[in-house]
Structure formats: C-alpha cells, structure tokens
C-alpha cells in the first residue's frame, strides 16, 4: 500500500513538473480544452435556465373566449350558461372587462398609457378548462364556442407553451450533440499533447522499461498529466461561465423585470461545478489513456 501511494505520488509529481516545464505549450493546450468545455457549458447554462422557466409555465390547455365589446353583462351570463352545457367544457371562469382592465394595469405597468384612454378597450372574456385535451376535442370546443352569439374570438393558448417546451427539448439535444463532438475534440487535443510528450521522452521510456518499469509505471505520469490538464481546463471554463452568467445575468434580470417577468439567469450549482471539473478530468485522462495505448500498440519504446 505504501509503495502504491509512493508510486502514485511520484507520478503525480512528475506530471505537474512536466506541466510546469513547458508553460507556454501547457497554457495553450489548457486554453484550447477550456474553450472546448466552455462552449457546451455556456449553452447548457442558457438552456437549463430557459428550461426551468418553461417548466414554470402552465402548459395545460386553456381555451379563452372573448366577447364583442357590445356584449352586455346579461348577455355574458347567457353565454356562460351555454358554454357550461358544452360536453367538453370543464371549469368556466368569467373575467369581466373591468376586472381585466385593472389586472392589465397592474401586470404590464401600462397604467399611464391606459389612463389616457376614455373607454375600456377590453371585452368580457371566459377562461375555460377543457375536459379532453386532444386536438380534435379542442377543435370541436373552439368551433362550438365560436358559434355562440356575441363571441368574437376563441383562442387555445397552450400551444405556444408546448412549442417552447419542444424547442427547449430540441435545443438540449443540440447541446448534447455539440458536447459530444467537443468532448471528442478534448480527447484529441489531450491525446496529441501526450503523444508529443511520449515522443520527446522516448529514451526515458526505453531506459525505464529496461530497468524494470511496468507499462503501468510509464503510463501513470502521462495519465496524471492528461487528467491535470483536463481538470485545469474544466476549472477555467467554469470560472469563465460563472463570470459570464453574472455579467449577462444582471442585464437579463433587468430586461425580464421590464416585461413584468420573473426570470433569473442562474450560475451552475456546486454539484454541477463538480461535474464540469470532474468531466474535464475524465476527458483528459481518457485522451491520455488512448494516446498511451496507441503508443504501446505501435510497439514504440519497447525493446
């Protein structure tokens, strides 16, 4: 156990010495890997935030019926009764035009603008929860309500929310694809760095093998080298992503607030940060492992 700890400590120490021995080359490699990690990370943060916001939206179908401006309170009551009789109509909520105006003034900060208008431009409306939500049933409900007197417009307002959810799902798949491609790029970058390292240290590898080094002994410092590069790149990408989140996030918060929306761009959590650094480490290690294995497969450094 003591020998195991010693060999691993020595391998780690040799790897960090190699990293420091070529500061420019190491910095460039780490920067390239960091950019490759940062791109999918930034997209992930963006779509995770959009996804969270979309999840908060009501995606249950909601049918809204707007009456003509000339419809009286009595006519509205009659229409409500007829809607309730429709087989697919569940809960029906009547929104009187006066209440709608007050709500609008509150929500959209349009008080000043609406104050300048003489009459209420909003109609009486009904919000109807349908019992069946398949396209055919909703379409029938929409047609039935439209056919009622004084009903001017009928909307089914869940579609945009569903579209947004689908877009987020699609975007997440794109992020996954980009991540996979860039993960492969990280492996190639690390692999190439390690290959060059092995070529420059070919003599040392040969001597070490001749005096009793196992392949594991030779491989270990290169694996640590790759893992250290990946971890450093992951940490840099994370710091950059958090920085961008706060920088862009403050503007997004102000923008969202001006539209009366509650949307905040959130930085990665502690767990997600650990995943980014851990992922970078694993990718670096994998790149090194593949490179060393290919080196052995070609029989280099073996006599």
């Amino acid at each position, binding site marked *: 156990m003591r020998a195991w700890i010693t060999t691993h400590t020595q391998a780690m120490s040799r790897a960090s010495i190699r990293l420091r021995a070529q500061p420019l080359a190491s910095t460039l490699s780490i920067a390239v890997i960091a950019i490759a990690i940062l791109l999918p990370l930034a997209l992930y943060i963006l779509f995770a935030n959009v996804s969270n916001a979309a999840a908060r939206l009501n995606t249950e179908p909601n049918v809204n019926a707007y009456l003509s401006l000339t419809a009286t309170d009595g006519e509205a009551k009659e229409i409500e009764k007829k809607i309730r009789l429709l087989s697919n109509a569940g809960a029906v909520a009547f929104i009187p035009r006066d209440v709608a105006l007050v709500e609008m003034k509150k929500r959209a900060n349009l008080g000043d603008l609406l104050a300048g208008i003489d009459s209420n431009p909003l109609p009486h409306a009904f919000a109807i929860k349908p019992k069946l939500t398949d396209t055919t049933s909703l379409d029938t409900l929409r047609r039935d309500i439209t056919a009622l007197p004084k009903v001017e417009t009928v909307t089914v307002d869940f579609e945009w929310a569903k579209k947004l959810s689908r877009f987020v799902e699609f975007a997440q798949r794109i992020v996954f694809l980009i991540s996979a491609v860039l993960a492969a790029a990280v492996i190639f970058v690390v692999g190439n760095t390690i290959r060059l390292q092995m070529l420059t240290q070919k003599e040392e590898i040969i001597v*070490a093998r*001749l005096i009793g080094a196992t392949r594991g002994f030779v491989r270990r410092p290169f694996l640590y080298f790759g893992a250290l590069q990946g971890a450093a790149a992951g940490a840099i990408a994370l710091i950059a992503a958090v920085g961008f989140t706060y920088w862009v996030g403050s503007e997004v918060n102000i923008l969202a607030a001006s539209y009366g929306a509650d949307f905040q761009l959130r930085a990665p959590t502690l767990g997600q940060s650990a995943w980014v650094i851990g992922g970078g480490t694993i990718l670096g290690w994998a790149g090194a492992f593949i490179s060393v294995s290919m080196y052995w497969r070609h029989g280099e450094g073996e*006599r």
Partner: protein
Amino acid sequence: MITFSSTTKRYANGFEALKGVSLTIEKGEMVAITGHSGAGKSTILKLAAGIDLASQGSVLVNNQNLAKLKQAGLAVLRRNLGLVFQDHKLLFDRLVFDNVALPLEIAGFTRIETGKRVRAALDKVGLLNREKANPIQLSGGEQQRLCIARAIVNRPLILIADEPTGNLDHAYAATIMELFKSFNQVGVTVLLSTHDTTGLARIACRRININHGMIADEVKT
C-alpha cells in the same frame, strides 16, 4: 541462475548471431564472455536480460523461461537484474542523483530510502561528490561508473554488463573490472562481455570465448 539451452538467435535479415549455444551460469559466479566484434557476445547478454528473445531453444533466468514471461513478469524480473549498457543509456535531462534513483522510483521506494541507497551506490563508484551534476558534465569513465551505480542501486541478484570497459583506457578499465569483482565477492552473479582480454588478466573469473555465434572455448582462472 542463467541457463541457455541450444539457444539460437536469428535476426530478421537472416543473420544467425548465436548458433545452438548451451550454457549454465551458477549463482554467485562471475562470467566474462569474450570474442571478437560481431561474435555474439552482446546477443548473449541481450537474451539473458530479455531484451531479445531466442529464435530457437530457451533462456532461463531464475528458473523462468523468458520467452514465456509476459510484459509485467519481465518487468519484475528486470528489477532483480542490474544492467550496464555499452552506450550507458543515461538520461541527460536528469541529474546524476536522479539517474541512479530511477530503478528505486520504479520499485516504489520512499524518498528517504531512495536518498540513502543512491548515495551509497554513488559512493561505491566514487561519484558521491557529483550527485548534483548533469551526466553530460561527466567524463566517459564517470558516465560508465554512473551507469554501474544505477545498475547496483537496487541490490540486484545478477549484474549484466555489455562491454563495460569498451571506451576506457587500461587504468580505468582495470578499476571497473575490480569494481565488478567486488560486487561478485558479496554474492552478486556477474555476466559481462568484453573484447579486452588484458583487462581481465588480473580478475579471477570464468571466461567463455565466443566465435561466430558458438562457444569456442572456456577457461576458469
């Protein structure tokens, strides 16, 4: 300890460096392989160290058939061998101390133990005052002694040296030979090759003369 049984070594170009050589080296023996250049001396040493494999016949070291050993097994076996190479194979980007420390690093020794053993080995070959030098700053004779220090630092059971006095003058060559004899006197089996028979004159050992890949004669002094 080392047994060659009807061993033949044929290279890819068809050249037969060894032709059915049978040879046994007992534990604690000191054996010098002599012969002209290209006679097959180095081939015997390479086969004994597992650097090359026999084309026919077998080579056993510590009762282990080298042809049947896997990579890991060969690595473990080599930790019990001290190898001195004709071209030294020193690492010029490491200090003298670090060159000697390499076998101990491979074996997983602690830093303190490594320090003790490296200094003892350097002391034995007279290079203790050069531990912080770069090998490139050493003379040919010093580089050879450095290579010997690296070979003995792990306290090997067998010391294999290929032309250890090849590039040295007679005075230095005699010192190196005496050094090998001193290791042999403490129980280390020594197998070396040389074409310099005058350097061997003062050393009591078994001499095997190789000619065209075969054992021509054998003398024990």
